[in-house]
């Protein structure tokens, strides 16, 4: 896969410029929202292929973790908007001075590459559809209302506008679903509220709450509930498209170039660069530094890299991860010269070819750089406290927990402090004093993360269905 990326520049056919090859019709690019019914029909460099997918994957992963963390819809929406702003900006037609075409092209490309990667099993398809539908919903809700109207008018959602004759025939029933707080308000709103008719099976989530008028197998949907139809249509179409793709994929003769990338992408969604939610403070600090500075020092790379390796990151994924994480990375020569060797070395693929284990707590305590934060920040308690709060407040750590942790730090019982943080942030599963389970305390960052992942998996185990 690395080789594919390296030779990417040669793959640009006849040196055609990217923008020139954008010959695809105006349909998908004229709106910000897309149902992705037009595949990209232009030449793509392997690099673009990969980057667009990876950037989109970040967002989908964040959406998934929002669901796992039980974030409210507003929070999820906010997080997603922020992430999109960073990795996958998509501006409305009214935005000035922005290359809308290239934004939309990236959006489309990423979507279609991930389809290839995630059509391969039912589980992956289900998760992908769920995450994509959420992303679509966020964008739909935040879309400019005029542009949204234009988008809706350009598509056929199999809905039938309810004509005035029919509307009047069911006036008594339909008025019930018109917007308004009182009967009079609803009666007034009825006249101006358009209604749409769809097969009830397309909008089960409105039917079950009796939010629509039902007649002869059709649901009469007031315009304000229209979004439900769109989301359902989006979901249904994507579902069908993924299934079709999965049937077609054995025909794709792309053994050497694309298949390895697709394999990795699919893994990225299943395991991949894991969510830092499960990491102990030392690794969270390194992760945050890397995210903020787009760089960390040698020992940070070593400690964090080994940690991720033991967590299950494959060599290919590791290279993608680090390349993406470094400023100006993305296949630049600098990255290849300076870091690629080191990463491969730590995986036992270069030099002494030793498969190095990840550093344990004892080693991190004595490390001068990128070591145990409880120890390194012992003498600046304010910094430690603010690091703890900013890192873990989303996971249940509060101001009241700090004194207890700081006492342990002062006693130089760093592992006790770390264990206590684990208990607090996993209070749904472990009680105080239980540590990682059976009173075991933290001796290794990987042990911390593995246990955390295990607990989350247990709690998400689907219940057996009983006939």
């Amino acid at each position, binding site marked *: 896969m690395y080789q594919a990326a390296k030779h990417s520049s040669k793959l640009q056919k006849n040196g055609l410029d990217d923008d020139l090859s954008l010959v695809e019709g105006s349909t998908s690019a004229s709106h910000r929202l897309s149902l992705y019914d037009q595949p990209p029909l232009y030449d793509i460099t392997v690099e673009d292929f990969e980057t667009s997918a990876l950037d989109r994957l970040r967002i989908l992963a964040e959406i998934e973790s929002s669901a796992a963390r039980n974030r409210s819809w507003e929070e999820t929406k906010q997080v997603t908007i922020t992430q999109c702003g960073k990795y996958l900006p998509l501006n409305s037609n009214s935005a000035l001075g922005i290359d809308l075409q290239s934004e939309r092209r990236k959006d489309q490309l990423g979507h279609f590459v991930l389809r290839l990667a995630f059509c391969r099993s*039912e589980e992956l398809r289900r998760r992908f559809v769920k995450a994509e539908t959420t992303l679509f919903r966020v964008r739909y809700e935040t879309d400019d209302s005029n542009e949204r109207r234009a988008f809706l008018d350009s598509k056929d959602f199999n809905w039938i506008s309810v004509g005035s004759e029919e509307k009047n025939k069911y006036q*008594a*029933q339909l008025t*019930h679903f018109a917007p308004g707080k009182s*009967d009079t308000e609803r009666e007034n709103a009825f006249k101006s509220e358009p209604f749409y008719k769809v097969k*009830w*099976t397309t909008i*089960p*989530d409105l*039917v*079950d*709450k*009796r939010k629509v*008028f*039902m*007649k*002869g*197998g*059709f649901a009469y949907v007031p315009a304000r509930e229209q979004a439900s139809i769109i989301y359902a249509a989006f979901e249904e179409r994507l579902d069908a498209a993924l299934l079709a793709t999965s049937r077609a994929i054995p025909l794709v003769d792309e053994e050497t170039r694309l298949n390895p990338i697709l394999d990795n992408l699919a893994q990225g969604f299943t395991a991949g660069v894991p969510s830092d939610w499960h990491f102990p403070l030392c690794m969270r600090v390194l992760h945050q530094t890397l995210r903020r500075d787009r760089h960390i020092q040698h020992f940070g790379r070593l400690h964090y890299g080994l940690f991720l390796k033991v967590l299950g990151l494959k060599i290919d994924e590791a290279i993608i991860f680090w390349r993406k994480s470094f400023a100006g990375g993305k296949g630049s020569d600098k990255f290849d010269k300076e870091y690629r060797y080191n990463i491969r070395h730590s995986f036992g693929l270069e030099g002494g070819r030793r498969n190095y284990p990840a550093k344990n707590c004892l080693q991190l305590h004595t490390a001068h750089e990128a070591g145990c934060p409880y120890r390194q920040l012992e003498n600046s308690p304010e910094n430690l406290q603010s690091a703890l709060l900013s890192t873990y407040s989303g996971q249940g750590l509060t101001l009241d927990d700090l004194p207890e942790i700081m006492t342990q730090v002062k006693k130089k019982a760093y592992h006790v402090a770390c264990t206590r943080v684990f208990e607090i942030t996993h209070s749904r599963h472990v009680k105080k004093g239980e540590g990682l389970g059976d009173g075991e305390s933290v001796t290794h960052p990987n042990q911390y993360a593995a246990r955390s992942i295990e607990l989350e998996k247990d709690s998400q185990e689907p219940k057996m*269905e009983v*006939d």
Partner: protein
Amino acid sequence: MASSAELDRVDPTAEDVLLNYYRRLYPFKQLFKWLNRGPERTEKESRLFPYREFAFTLRNEAYLRYNSYPSDIEMKKHVCLLTPSRFEIGPVYSAQPKDKKTVRPTHFKAEKREVVFDIDMTDYDPIRTCCSDADICKRCWAFISIAVDVLDKAIRDQFGYNQLLWVYSGRRGIHLWISDKEAFELTDNQRKAMVEYLTVIKNGKEPGKRVNSRVGSRDLPPTLKDAIEAVREPFDDLILQDQDCFGSQEGFETLLSLIPDKKLVSRLREKWSQTPDSPSYTKWDEMKAEIKALKDKTARQTMRHAMEDIVLQYTYPRLDAEVSKHRNHLLKAPFCIHPKTGRICVPVDPRRIREFDPAKVPTVGQLLAELNASNSNNNGEHLEDWQKTSLKPYIEMFEQYANSVQEKPKMDLSW
């Protein structure tokens, strides 16, 4: 003809009784036609009947799942061999259920099945006053007939399904099978939505408000307005007159617990404690008068809503929702014998549900006796065995239904 006392002694779980019934009377042919959505037995391509699960309850209560057969002929053979006390129909899977152990689990999925509903008299125990538990009489059947009425109308009118088969369960309940192609192909999620749309009463033993009918203080949605109109008369007849649901201390306390207006409750309680046994319709009228006398318009409105909810709570169909939500649920096949009563699970015409009397449904003992009697006076005309018994009208009804559930209309090339 044997006397009814003699007939009652026929054990509906005895091997010879079951064997005789399955061999001579059970309508396997019609069952096949219905489930295969077409009569072509030879058609190799059919992925309907051969992919359908049947589950048997043997006479020793052992339960055999994942049976499947290429056609009714093989099924009849096996059923006569096993002589199960009853059997259930499951979904159509993506592979033949008998091969379940050899196909990959990902290739064995419940794909299609009729939408089914189950209404059981036991869910009416908190409100019926005539019987309890497994008992049922003509009087409490009225609850079932209201339920059939309301559901049948709602499903035909609102969901647009027409192929509805109502089947008496043999003791105290009724099943509904919807075979319309669209219904047959609904996903679990869509089934769940349909059930929830039709579910208004939360089942449970404890008294108290169980109705989930409206959003906040809004009017009833159209579907429940229709239902209320349909049950207003039966409510008077059944709840106020026949069952006399509020004719006792316990009964009217339940009613009071459903009234949100505290002052009104204490006024009524004071009045009714004087005459706790006064008939329900008197109490109902007294409550209505109290509501009319309310000065505050919103209070009157709230009470009007509460009254609607009370009517719904006492008459709206009580569904066993879990049965309907998943495709892989099993439901007893029509024409099985109820092991306790010996009665046959016969189809019921929803338009004549009020006339239906569960006590008049033929028992297996009665049918076999009729068959024996007919053998002795054979007048030469060739009839199928079932045509000689009182099972005839029911099987004819079933046959008609099976004929209506045909996916591809048979091409007629002869003219």
